[in-house]
């Protein structure tokens, strides 16, 4: 294991240079003693080379897209073009302060304005706010808009948000954060929303419905129009979790097919790298009559000049982030869309769907595939059920063995409605030979379950560390280094 940076401390070493202070005032003249820190901050003294070696050493213990494949369902771990990183680092973007006057940031506002428009166009909504900085943040914003809508209409009796049991965990968590009650309904045996169960749970208190489409099983919710009709009949609103938008770009516009609000995940669909957890972007699109509830400001254009539009402040839900969202992430999405163009956009979705179906087809004799009557979209669910029943190998063991083969593991044990679930999403950027390598590895593992089960139970064996004890981590709770 790598030493921590604190163990590399050598008193007196420096990793920075700064010019001498050319103002002759002492700190004690500025800050009364009472407010001065009593004990110095303890940070390691290290040189720049120490620092670079340290972080390089850490980096070598990570998987990443440039190293290998991530068949990670619902996460859309596609390759992210390098030109994005070069261009966002322009001084004219990086070194802009959010309180600058509008006419000193016209280029920045133009990008944001155009991106609002392009995202609205491809999703079929009236306009898009770029303020939410993550998918869950978008959900929160969308649900706040649902609240604002009902308040505006005097719908004081609205209390509940409905979602299917295949929903992402963020959906119910966002519902609670906005003060609504959660109502979870069942999926049917085809993996789609159970309309009868929906009807049984709908009433005057229904404020809205959250649906991921394609859903987390990788299936297109084909009854979405009927669902929308049911929800709209009690004046509820339809929210689409757009985590899986990569599957349908250029093929379907959710705003034209029953949805009233939708979030995008820029770090999934629009080529912002995941960054070990973020930063991302979670813009949301809304239908025309909901525009007045969007967070302030929107970016607008008048007489050839771009400006921050606060004109709907009175009806707006307010702010969900201090400024204009993750600007640097928004630029990357803009560049990506401009480089794809209309045909490229559709091509992304097509190849994502083809890649997923290809793997599913090749694995169907080796792993239990619970929903294979219809073609999957960009991802599919395989299950380790056969391996568990026959050889008592858990899906967790299979996932860890996949790491040994040089791939990241799929999303496992989700969605919750499929036992021993493995959610596999290849994305469009992966080549056939990578998919074939992964398929072969999966088939090999299926064989190992039968022949050498102990290999799986001890996996991973070839990774920087062996299987990590997460119960010990909770029991001993060590969250900072003592030195």
């Amino acid at each position: 294991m790598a030493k921590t940076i604190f163990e590399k401390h050598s008193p007196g070493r420096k990793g920075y240079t700064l010019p001498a202070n050319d103002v002759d005032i002492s700190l004690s003249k500025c800050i009364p003693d009472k407010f001065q820190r009593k004990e110095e901050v303890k940070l390691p003294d290290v040189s720049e080379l120490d620092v670079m070696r340290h972080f390089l050493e850490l980096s070598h213990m990570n998987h990443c897209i440039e190293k290998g494949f991530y068949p990670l369902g619902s996460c859309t771990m596609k390759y992210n073009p390098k030109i994005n990183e070069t261009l966002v680092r322009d001084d004219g973007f990086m070194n802009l302060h959010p309180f600058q006057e509008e006419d000193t940031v016209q280029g920045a506002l133009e990008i944001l304005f155009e991106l609002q428009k392009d995202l609205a166009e491809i999703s079929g909504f009236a306009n898009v706010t770029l303020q939410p900085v993550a998918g869950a943040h978008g959900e929160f914003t969308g649900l706040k808009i649902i609240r604002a809508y009902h308040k505006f209409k005097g719908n004081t009796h609205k209390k509940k948000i409905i979602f299917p049991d295949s929903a992402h965990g963020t959906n119910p968590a966002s519902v609670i954060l906005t003060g609504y009650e959660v109502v979870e309904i069942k999926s049917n045996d085809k993996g789609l929303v159970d309309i009868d169960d929906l009807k049984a749970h709908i009433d005057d208190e229904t404020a809205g419905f959250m649906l991921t489409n394609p859903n987390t099983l990788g299936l297109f919710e084909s009854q979405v129009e009927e669902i929308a009709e049911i929800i709209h009949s009690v004046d509820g609103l339809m929210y689409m979790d757009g985590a899986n938008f990569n599957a349908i770009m250029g093929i379907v516009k959710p705003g034209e097919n029953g949805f009233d609000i939708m979030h995008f995940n820029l770090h999934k669909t629009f080529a912002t790298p995941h960054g070990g957890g973020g930063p991302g972007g979670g813009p949301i699109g809304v239908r025309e009559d909901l525009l007045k509830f969007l967070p302030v400001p929107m970016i607008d254009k008048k007489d050839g000049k771009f400006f921050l539009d606060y004109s709907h402040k009175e009806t707006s839900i307010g702010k969900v982030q201090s400024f204009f969202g993750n600007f640097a992430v928004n630029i990357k999405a803009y560049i990506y869309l401009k480089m794809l163009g209309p045909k490229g956009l559709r091509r992304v979705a097509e190849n994502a769907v083809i890649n997923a179906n290809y793997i599913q087809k090749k694995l169907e004799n080796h792993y239990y595939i619970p929903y294979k009557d219809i073609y999957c979209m960009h991802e599919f669910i395989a299950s380790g059920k056969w391996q568990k029943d026959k050889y008592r190998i858990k899906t967790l063991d299979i996932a860890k063995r996949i790491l040994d083969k040089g791939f990241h593991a799929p999303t496992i044990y989700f969605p919750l409605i499929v036992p021993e679930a493995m959610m596999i999403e290849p994305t469009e950027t992966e080549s056939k030979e990578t998919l074939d390598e992964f398929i072969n590895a999966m088939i090999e593992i299926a064989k190992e379950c039968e022949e050498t089960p102990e290999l799986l139970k001890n996996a991973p064996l070839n990774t920087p560390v062996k299987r990590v004890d997460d119960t010990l981590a909770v029991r001993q709770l060590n969250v900072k280094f003592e030195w």
Partner: protein
Amino acid sequence: MPFISNTDKERKEMLKEIGVEKFEDLLNSIPKKFLLKEPCNLEEPYSELEITRKISNLAAKNISTEKANSFLGGGIYDHFIPAAVDHIILRPEFHSAYTPYQAEVSQGTLQYIYEYQTMICELTGMEISNAGMYDGASAAAEAILMASRKTKNFKAVIAETINPLYLEVIKSYIEGVGIELVTIPKKKGLVDLDILKQKVDDETACVLLQTPNFFGNIEDAFAVEEITHTSKKTLFIVAVDPISLAVLNSPSEYNADIVVGEGQALGNAQNYGGPLFGFLACQLDLARTLPGRIVGATLDADGKRAYCLTLQVREQHIRRAKATSNICSNESLCNLAALAYMTLMGKDGLKEVAIQSTTKAHYLADEISKINGFSIAFDTPFFKEFVIKTPISAKEIIMKLKDKNIFPGIDLKQFGYENMLLIAVTEKKRKCDLDELLNSLKIFSR
């Protein structure tokens, strides 16, 4: 086609293996009438060279704070960033890695978060830090939610001297869950302690104070703490500028329960206000109410030190509706930049940054107060930011100086304060930059 590896030939082979003739056959689950007949109305694709030209032209329409002499702050600051920081965060192993759920292939990410947590704890004097929030504002909002969960109280008392943008985001966050907001007005640029005393009671979940506050003034956190903790359950939340902590009291000195703040100043560019990151740290007894990810040290199967995400039962992917927050994606790479920054600067560098920022700010304030018609708005200690009263509207000054590429500060009129300018100074300002602002303000002297 850009960024897609497979050729048309390979695509055909795959379709054949799947057992269909053409792509459209795979769409049989989508109602026919949903299918778009026309491509989306987007511009035709740009090549890399073309998009580079386009984007560079757009960037050139902006005036950056490198090209101008900027005194803008208000939560986002132009501090120096060592070059090595960007080289570290651009490593693909960090940059394109997923959230570290698969610990065995994510030790790099996990260890840097653990080291980040350690440094945040060191700066704030707290016992546990999470792996970061969206920004300072959402961190403050989530801290209030934590306090409400812990105390089962639904009243949050907030000093009005807090950044008004934080207040707006906080309102968005707490409206739905029914927390009542009580704001305490200011007196001479600081929270009014007498009114605070009247408002804190046993029903109060928390008191939230920012120091240095929005106006740059250093609040008497010791006095606020005393008032807060007269109510047994009430938690003391403090929002701080991480750079200030190199010289100002550690929040543990005044017994803060939860510490939050905007982390951008630590090694992250201003980026027109995003991405930012919020830090959130607290004492251990509040650990289970924390939102977001936390990394813990543990052992692997060989008994060697390793790291993993811990206390995950708080999180949405496990607890769903019962989670402490809905946060999933955070701003991890910005936390890495902050860690790399703190590591490179060390305690001496961080202190030097804080000292230069504050002493230069004081020089500037002293000199501005000598210009006829200008004065310092509040007679109270401040850190690197201060408010001046202007003889004419602040907007007029801003617009006139813009032509000289000087951004003199933030017009406080938008927050309800006429003829006031909020001026921030960092270590990047040279004496000649300060003097340039001084000379240009003299034009407005009365």
